[in-house]
């Protein structure tokens, strides 16, 4: 009995004496919310920027120390060949240990993106701190460090603001795509798909955005905006898909949640705004006599958002016609995305994968020169649109006036 209790005491003592190898008090951590990646001076060198949150400046209502004067984030910049080298180097500057588990996104400067990202991603993947849910974003026309240093209105942490903008833009407008880290890695390792990454651009003077005062203005000097989707080929950024093209990409990606399309009416352009409420994408591929073919079927549901011309919305025929127009418009947008991608010779839609699923044998030799085949791939788009809701009002007031005019 005594020996057993002695053993217990020894074990407890051991536990206490061992101290705490991995014990990291919260107060010793600098929580990184975003990482910026830019081209360095040398070929293999990169500039890493770490956006670190100052918690007490971000959380209001902290007892005693809600420090409004402190900037919500601090950006540390360091050059290095790999993430780890740079992170360790940055410890010379940061007063705390950089902690990467809460990285919301990784921002890549456009220059670096054009030069190629394949090499630099490995250390992100290998790290046990960075998560696959981190998003990838390109800083369009800028370096990443410039964009990361901007303070943003509404959301105190720029990373949260960035993610928010990406998310809502995807959800409501459909011109950006939620691309997480593993999506890119999967695409890089897959011959039947090329990566694509959404971009962020800056409106205004970036230097002005580094001051906290920027967010005190009612109309900030500088603001972030979502700007299109970058298409990659063999790890290099080759071109942008913007506006309608970006929405087409979203459609093909099956991730379009809702958006607004304008269709013509009475011969005038863009008179009726239709909100797409639900959309389903089905991509089928087949190989006919060695030639791959893709058929895209879109089924969408929509409701009418606004009407600028006098039409009878209560009449099924009118609705049917509007649906037809919507179908055409949708097809156009999708085709524009396909055309753009074919022009860049980069299969960001994963058509290659579709072919592989449909006909693994044929894929065996198709994949050898897939980029070229992709650029000539016949793509057929079928759209079925259903307009279910007329909105809160059935007949537009313009119509009433027309009727009155006619009656008089």
């Amino acid at each position, binding site marked *: 009995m005594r020996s057993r209790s002695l053993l217990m005491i020894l074990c407890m003592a051991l536990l206490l004496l061992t101290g705490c*190898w*991995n014990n990291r008090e919260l107060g010793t951590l600098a929580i990184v919310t975003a990482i910026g990646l830019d081209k360095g001076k040398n070929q293999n060198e990169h500039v890493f920027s770490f956006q670190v949150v100052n918690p007490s400046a971000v959380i209001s209502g902290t007892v005693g120390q809600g420090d409004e004067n402190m900037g919500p984030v601090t950006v540390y910049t360091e050059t290095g060949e790999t993430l780890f080298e740079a992170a360790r180097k940055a410890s010379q500057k940061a007063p705390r240990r950089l902690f990467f588990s809460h990285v919301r996104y990784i921002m890549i400067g456009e220059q670096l993106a054009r030069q190629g990202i394949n090499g630099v991603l490995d250390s992100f993947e290998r790290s046990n701190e960075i*998560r696959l*849910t981190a998003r990838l974003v390109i800083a369009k026309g800028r370096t990443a460090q410039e964009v990361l240093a901007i303070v943003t209105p509404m959301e105190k942490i720029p990373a949260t603001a960035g993610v928010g903008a990406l998310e809502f833009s995807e959800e409501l407008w459909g011109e950006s795509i939620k691309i997480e880290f593993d999506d890119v890695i*999967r695409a890089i*390792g897959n011959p039947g798909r090329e990566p694509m990454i959404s971009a962020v651009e800056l409106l205004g003077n970036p230097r002005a955005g580094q001051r906290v005062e920027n967010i005190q203005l009612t109309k900030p000097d500088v603001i972030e905006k979502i700007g299109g989707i970058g298409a990659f080929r063999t790890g290099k950024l080759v071109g942008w898909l913007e506006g309608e093209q970006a929405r087409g990409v979203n459609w093909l990606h099956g991730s379009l949640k809702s958006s607004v399309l304008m269709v013509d009416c009475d011969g005038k352009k863009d008179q009726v705004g239709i909100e797409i409420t639900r959309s389903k994408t089905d991509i089928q591929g087949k190989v006919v006599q060695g030639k791959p073919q893709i058929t895209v079927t879109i089924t969408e549901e929509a409701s009418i958002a606004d009407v600028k011309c006098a039409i009878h919305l209560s009449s099924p025929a009118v609705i049917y016609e509007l649906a037809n127009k919507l179908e055409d418009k949708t097809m156009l947008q999708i085709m524009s995305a396909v055309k753009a991608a074919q022009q860049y010779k980069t299969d960001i839609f994963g058509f290659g*994968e579709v072919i592989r*699923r449909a006909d693994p044998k044929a894929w065996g030799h198709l994949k050898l020169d897939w980029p070229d085949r992709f650029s000539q791939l016949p793509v057929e788009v079928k759209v079925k649109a259903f307009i279910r809701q007329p909105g809160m009002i059935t007949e537009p007031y313009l119509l009433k006036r027309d009727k009155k005019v006619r009656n008089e």
Partner: protein
Amino acid sequence: MEKIRISPRQLFCLIVLFELGSSLVIPLGADAGQDAWLAILAGLIAGLLIFQVYLYLYRQYPAIPLTGYIRKILGNVLGWPISLLYVAFFIYGSARITRDIGDLLFNSVYDETPLFLLHFLMLAAITYVLHKGFEVLARTGEVFFGIVMILVCVGILLVIFSGIVQFTLLQPVLENGWEPIFQAVVSQTYTFPFGQIICFAMILPYLAKPGRARRAGMTGLIVSGIILSLITALEISVLGADLVQRSTFPLLITLSKVDIANFLQRLDALVVFTLIIVNFFKISIFYYSAVIGAADLFKVDKLRSLILPIGVIILFSSMNIAGSHAEHSVEGDFYLKYTLELFVTVIPLFLLVGSFIRRLLGNRGESGFSTEQQR
């Protein structure tokens, strides 16, 4: 043998926990690409077949463990060393899984903690529980079986509801035909985890109702096989076969991708918790099999006195079996292909043939010794 009785239900729970142990950690059947889940099911069928052999042998000798009937069938001269090899095999098995979980913890969270300490803590806990007796382990297994099942269900539901599952990643099914699947079965999924059920050949004599062994064992294997297959399919449909294959720890990455309403996220704790539990039981069962074997071979009456020494052996061998994770993995390939195959298939089949011959010669007990010698 001590007077220990476990119920068929407890046996079932232990088998499921045992099968899930450490096979949840690694990318199982990854050689088969996106068909890994099929490879697991195929491995399950193979495992069920070899389990019939163990069951047959158990029915011939319901009161003694594997090491006991090896000597009965092959005779003492040949049987004793083989039994000793089995004990070593069990010790190696538990050391290996200890190392697996140690490496995993080291790589994921505890990168500044000595590996030895991680192993020590695990084995100290196991030693404590085994010291309380195998019945206590069995009862604890019942409790944690429930907990693990809840965790698994919650985990699967979370992954599905977070909308990150793309079933297209599982296609094309059978891209390269059945061959890669057979290869994966032969090189991995049959022996590991299903063939490892050989451990239970040491434990079956404790079963209170020997008639129920088949049912408990088969359902245990099938349930765990289905869970493993399902989880692997989910991993692939979230991460893609390539990423699963390359990652050291696909399940953790899969769960870390879950994000429901920006709140239910970062659920890695679920996985780590599950893994520690199932590995705990797998190590315990290997460990206890070694203890039973050693007690049987060296004619030690009190099993309990062997628990601590064997624990120390496992602790040190878990540190010394490999210098690095890479070495550990290379060794693992050899272990999967040859060592396991030998202990799980080859020797038991020999025993099967041996016991047939014994039966043909008319069970003459010790007098059959000479015939075995000639063989």
